[in-house]
């Protein structure tokens, strides 16, 4: 429905954030996805999270590859640059973009085809490099734009719309990410905005790559009975491992965090993630135990959701490369070119 243009009128009573912007200022163009698509709910959660953290629109870059998920950057924050690139290549392009300008916040929106098949190498290496970005996988287990082929996240036995069961084992992006050094790993459900918004806010504050796997049912090709990525199946099998609150930095609330029964993780910028109702002995900073917990739950066919793992201590791409604090793309030419006298002198090495 690309012909429908959203009206720009804003109701005067709409709440404004620190920048004086309403939530409408974080919206994008009208979605052209199917009515009821899980992706649109995720878009709404992104809009909400960005508005709540008062992200200046022009300091955001929306990155994507190809697929239904990759269309969504057009549907949020019109005031931000977007890059709807090529299938699977978003993590590589974002790595370069991030290297060039560390001041911009990057949200990459990808899908299970984009990230777990054609671009799985790029995703893994972006995770290894700990490129500071929010990396969302809108995971529906199916190729939507090409009409219903299984993706690499389809569970064994999950049935296609034509009734054929998937035979080959799925790739679980959460377990994969944990195994290759991811520093922020979460899973959520597109239908659970209350869980997703605080995760997104914490992800935006994380200094490194924040991987968020969001189960996002495809209403057209993968919402039938027999599918394990349907609304019904996900609602039935999702169990919340952690409930996370995100507390922004330098906030009064800091002093009032109840320590009893609450696990807290302080982020690099001073903000805090509070984990409520975590299972006993669950430590979101212990990679091995988180992995063991997830494997154990998986055996019981549970889809574990929440902010599952966080490690704020590891260096991101810029720290690891000791790059200048001024974005490389903004360095004046004089800082980059050593000049004629130096060239003349260094050529003595070639005599």
């Amino acid at each position, binding site marked *: 429905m690309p012909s429908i243009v959203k009206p720009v009128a804003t109701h005067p009573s709409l709440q404004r954030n620190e920048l004086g912007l309403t939530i409408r200022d974080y919206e994008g163009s009208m979605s052209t996805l199917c009515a009821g698509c899980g992706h649109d709910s995720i878009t709404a959660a992104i809009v909400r999270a960005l508005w709540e953290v008062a992200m200046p629109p022009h300091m955001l870059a929306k990155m994507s590859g190809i697929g239904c998920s990759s269309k969504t950057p057009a549907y949020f924050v019109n005031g931000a640059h977007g890059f709807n690139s090529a299938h699977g290549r978003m993590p590589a392009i974002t790595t370069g973009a991030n290297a060039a*300008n560390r001041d911009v916040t990057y949200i990459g929106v990808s899908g299970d085809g984009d990230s777990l098949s054609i671009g799985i190498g790029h995703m893994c290496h972006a995770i290894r490099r700990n490129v500071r970005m929010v990396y969302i996988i809108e995971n529906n287990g199916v190729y939507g734009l090409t009409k219903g082929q299984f993706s690499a996240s389809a569970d064994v036995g999950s049935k296609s719309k034509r009734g054929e069961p998937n035979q080959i084992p799925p790739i679980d992006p959460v377990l994969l990410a944990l195994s290759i050094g991811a520093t922020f790993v979460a899973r959520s459900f597109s239908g659970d905005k209350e869980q997703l918004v605080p995760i997104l806010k914490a992800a935006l504050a994380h200094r490194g790559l924040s991987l968020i796997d969001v189960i996002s049912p495809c209403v057209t090709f993968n919402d039938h009975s027999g599918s394990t990525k349907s609304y019904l199946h996900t609602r039935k099998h999702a169990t919340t491992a952690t409930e996370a609150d995100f507390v922004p930095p330098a906030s009064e609330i800091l002093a009032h965090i109840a320590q009893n029964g609450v696990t807290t993780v302080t982020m690099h910028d001073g903000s805090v993630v509070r984990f409520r109702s975590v299972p006993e002995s669950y430590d979101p900073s212990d990679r091995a135990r988180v992995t063991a917990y997830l494997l154990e739950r998986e055996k019981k066919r549970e889809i574990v959701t929440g902010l599952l793992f966080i490690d704020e201590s590891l260096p991101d791409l810029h720290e690891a490369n000791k790059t200048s604090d001024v974005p490389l*793309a903004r360095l004046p030419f004089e800082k980059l070119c050593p000049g004629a006298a130096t060239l003349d002198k260094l050529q003595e090495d070639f005599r």
Partner: protein
Amino acid sequence: MQQQLRTRINDFAFKLANVNGTGSASANGLLMQAIFRMGIPVSGKNLFPSNIQGLPTWYEIRVNKDGHTARSLDYDLMVAMNAQTYARDIREVRSSGYVLYDSSWPLDGSLYREDVHFLPVPFAQMCNENFADSRQRILMKNIAYAGTLVAALDIDMPIVEALLDETFAGKAALRDSNRQALHIGYDYAREHFHCPLPFHLEKMDANGDKILIDGNTATALGCLYAGASIAAWYPITPATSVMDAFRQFCERYRRDPETGRNNYCILQAEDELAAIGMVIGACWNGARAFTSTSGPGISLMNELLGLAYYSEIPAVVIDVQRVGPSTGMPTRTQQADLLECAYASHGDTKHILLFPSDPAECFEFAVKSFDLAERFQTPVIMLSDLDIGMNDWVAPRLRWDDSYRPDRGRVLSEEDLKSVAKFHRYTDEDQFYVPSRTLPGVHQSGAYVTRGSGHNKFGGYTETPSEYQEVVDRLARKQKAAGSLVPHPKVQTRSGAQIGIVAIGGCNPAVQEAVDLLAADGVQADYMRICGFPFHESVERFLYDHDPCFIVEQNRDAQLRSLLTLETCVPKNRLRSVLVYGGFPLSARLVVEEITKQLEVTHAVHR
């Protein structure tokens, strides 16, 4: 019968046959550098295997007082240090030439040739007597044969000793053993042979302030001076040394003295798809970024080169060409990526290409690549090759003009954007059909979605034929316009020229020499070296003005000729091909032989 060669000064070639991984490269480099310091025009061609240790490897040195330093096929002397290849090495020496070999073991009688002189030196035996350590015994054999050559060819001993002192500054023990080995070989030669040989060296002053440098190092310097702050790459022969050199220069010149932070970022990517993706992401964000690769990498980069072309993002790619197809011969040279690069990616795509011919142009054209990429908001591929990139060349000293300012193209500033009511990405084109672009993180009114999917001139998604065509038609005009700004062809004319010769890149030294040799044979040729694509308008004029035109290139399928017939209106039958593509650097003799043969055929037909 052995004949005595007539005395020749500063005009001969010799070849060193070694075993890969035994340390011969440093001895050969030492000889080359010493001759360079004697002020004599010299070239060294490393003909090496795709191997770390054990396979045969050769190094050829040619000296020529007239400055002709293309690969020579006439070897006056063979330094046969590899028993595995004795047979073919001895066969290659010209009649009346010399073979220097390690006589610690007897030479198989069947290898003797009546018409060459053998110079037996017991290198292994002498090194075993003089050095205790087994690794040193192997390494010092190389310096020992270098010493023999110093005597045989009259290489200036003080220069060689000074070079050893520089190399082993602060490592007195190593310096002493190297000096010892050098003199072992030198003294033996003086004692046993008539030194120097009839062909030998005499100091000249032909090198002035020139430098001895390989093209990959010069390319890296160009990227450094152009202000590239981000480099992404995947290791590949023969391009790896571009990034090795870039890293070394960055460590020296790009570390902020106050903060200790790096004003650069080098990303070793997971593959070439990622490498070009990173470059595109960085350039999209306003940095100058590049990748270095070879043919197999270009194959992988095709997809995203199309994205950058269509969405109009600058990118610089250095393609150091090697022998294809597929893995091909990674350590051998060719010019076979021309068509692949010119039209890389699916759909209607065309790219700007630059063809440097030596390290000095690698430096100059690397800088130019960034200016053109940003001016035209499109990928620019600089096509070097293994011969230029990895061999040491005597090159004109690199010059830098401190008044140079990078051409960042049409990028709207924050100030510009404040006064813009609504920015549209692909409107507002200039005389080169280039629109203005905006960068993330600058101002909200510059925001738009960059996309590789069908878009109209406003940057919006479209599937409407007229809107789609409007954009791609402008891209074609833009591409054509770039032909006026790529480096112009270099043309050399001769009075009474009967034919034209056209070449690119690393063919240049051989073709220059061939033009002189042909003239001596009574065939006058005008010579045009093409430096960029899209072709400058004068390229087509030259082709029309010369019949026939010989297109000299290093690939099987006459790719340059194909490009010329595709992109100009010149009749195909006027363009003849001279093709040399076995993987070794071009030599003038092959060019002359082929042109002469074709001209004789033509004359025979006309008679």
